[in-house]
């Protein structure tokens, strides 16, 4: 027998034309164990209030329309089971909100212009001379095809994008979905615009270096795209293709290798100096003095090394796969 439960839903209601502030309305509904969040939205609309608005189409996790937040968790409504959500949050009351309340237009419908403009920014299409009447396909090995596969499963739902804290505080950040899209093409052996794309995603303040590595995107993505993994791919390709500019971000990544080669461990003052350059250190003087006062700074003469450092040095020599020239 299927079981049912009565749950309370606190739902974000808002009409940008008439309302100054949103209101949370309460609906108590009987839900069965197989029901998904989208079933709840449909029930509210079809049995309680027809004016309740949200986006949906395919109802089985492939069209990307129905992104929302439940108790702060960024989801597509047609994939998450209601009981599981209630159990996860150990509650009988779930809060249903749009992906980003600040962008709400009506109830759960948000203005996604920001999301699509990022999508546009990475040249989201294969750049190649297209043979309009081909008699033979490009030969692509299964391994090469598999490289693209994960990123190609993205349905542009925006779940990761609206879960990303870096996007939230920096509206210019391209964000996980579009960066995964960029990686989808930079890993495609048929694409001719790899370098253009790497240039776009390397812009400081917007691109891959603004990711805070929180893994929210990978955790939230309903399609297993692993956007942060794709961002790492872009980082790697940046160095492989000698597209890395000589700046604070690239030096910071490279600096770890130098530090490890020198001491095995990181000299934290040195990594800041190496990344920022000696002049760049100026802006860290305040924090540096605070730290010094608290006894947090290891003086160069006190910096000690890992034991068996020669092993580390040897491995760095033999296992390095890229070099950094710095444009």
């Amino acid at each position, binding site marked *: 027998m299927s079981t049912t439960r009565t749950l309370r839903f606190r739902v974000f209601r808002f009409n940008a034309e008439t309302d100054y502030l949103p209101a949370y309305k309460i609906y108590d509904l009987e839900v069965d164990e197989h029901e998904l969040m989208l079933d709840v939205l449909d029930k509210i609309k079809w049995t309680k209030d027809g004016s309740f608005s949200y986006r949906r189409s395919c109802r089985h996790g492939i069209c990307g329309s129905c992104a929302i937040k439940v108790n*702060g*968790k960024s989801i597509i409504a047609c994939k998450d089971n209601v009981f599981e959500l209630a159990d996860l*949050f150990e509650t009988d009351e779930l809060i249903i909100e749009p992906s980003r309340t600040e962008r709400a237009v009506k109830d759960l419908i948000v203005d996604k212009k920001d999301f699509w403009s990022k999508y546009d920014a990475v040249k989201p299409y294969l750049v190649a001379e297209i043979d309009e009447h081909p008699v033979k396909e490009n030969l692509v090995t299964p391994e090469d095809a598999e490289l693209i596969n994960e990123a190609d499963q993205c349905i542009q739902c925006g779940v990761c994008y609206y879960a990303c*804290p*870096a996007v939230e*505080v*920096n509206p210019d*950040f391209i964000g996980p979905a579009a960066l995964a899209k960029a990686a989808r093409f930079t890993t495609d052996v048929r694409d001719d615009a790899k370098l253009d794309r790497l240039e776009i995603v390397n812009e400081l*303040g917007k691109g891959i*270096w*603004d*990711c*805070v*590595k*929180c*893994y*929210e995107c*990978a*955790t939230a993505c309903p399609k297993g795209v692993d956007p*942060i993994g794709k961002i*790492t791919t872009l*980082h*790697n390709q940046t*160095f492989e293709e000698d597209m890395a500019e000589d700046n*604070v971000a690239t030096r*910071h*990544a*490279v600096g*770890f*290798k130098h*530090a*490890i080669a020198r001491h*095995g*461990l*990181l*000299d*934290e003052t040195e990594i*800041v100096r190496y*990344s920022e350059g000696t002049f760049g250190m100026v802006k860290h003087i305040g*924090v540096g003095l*605070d*730290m010094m*006062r*608290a*006894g*947090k700074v*290891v003086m160069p003469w006190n910096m*000690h090394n*890992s*034991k068996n450092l020669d*092993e*580390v040095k*040897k*491995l*760095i020599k*033999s*296992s*390095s*796969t*890229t070099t950094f020239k710095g444009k």
Partner: protein
Amino acid sequence: MSKLRYALFAGCTPKGSTPELMMATMAVAEKLGIELVELEAASCCGASHLQDFDDFLSVVLNARNLCYAEKEGLDMVTVCNTCQLNVAGANLRLKSDSKLKNSVNEKLAEVGLNYTGSVQVKHFLYAILEDYGLDNLAEQVVKPLREMNIAPFYGCHNIRPTDIAQDSNGGESPYMPTSLDNLIIALGGNSIDYESKNKCCGFHADLQAPHTSHALTGKALLDAKDNNADYMVTPCPLCHLNFDTQQKNAAKAAGREIGLPVLHLPQIIGLALGIEPKKLGLDKHVIDTQLA
């Protein structure tokens, strides 16, 4: 209970700019009778940055780190979320990808090492939770943290990505983490519920995107403060660096005074166990803890 023994992967920050974390960890371990055998040969985990430059190299170096724990025949304990991410992450990748394991072992052979995948890697928090046990810990409390409202700050890399957390940190939920809350309660403190507790402190973009970093740091601190926290506690020294040493910058970004002292996980345990504040390095903070 037989004595708990672990290989300690200390990490660079506890040996560098958060010496108080190292002090407190060792003091607490001693008090609880947990033996931590420091892996002195270990190298830096790469801090989630080396992988951006050279992913393979970062796996090789962490495989080497794991080899030293394997040599000791001990499970490994970390005291930093990002060390946990990198070392446990390498462990998971190597265990599930035999091709990668083979090519890594080829390199390790040059220095006479071989990775087998025989040890677990867990953060100290989970060693206490799962192996030592909260009930046991509660019994050792001599100075319950009754007066303290403590905001637990989990730090990303102990709870995300989920596959690593599943494999090594007892499958803590990234959406509803409970370990720190339970620990605070076991120590007799009040754990504060607030939205930012499982969010990001911004540390990893500190140099590259300082505005983003400061904004996130400020947001989390203020969220805790606005929910009546007297202290924040975190298992991660990198979160700590941002919250403590960068708190002034965060306040500037937020346009508000903050003034919230932030403690390391072993520091609050140590306080409850009655360890002298100085031994826990409580005087080595930028934001005064008023405890030392």
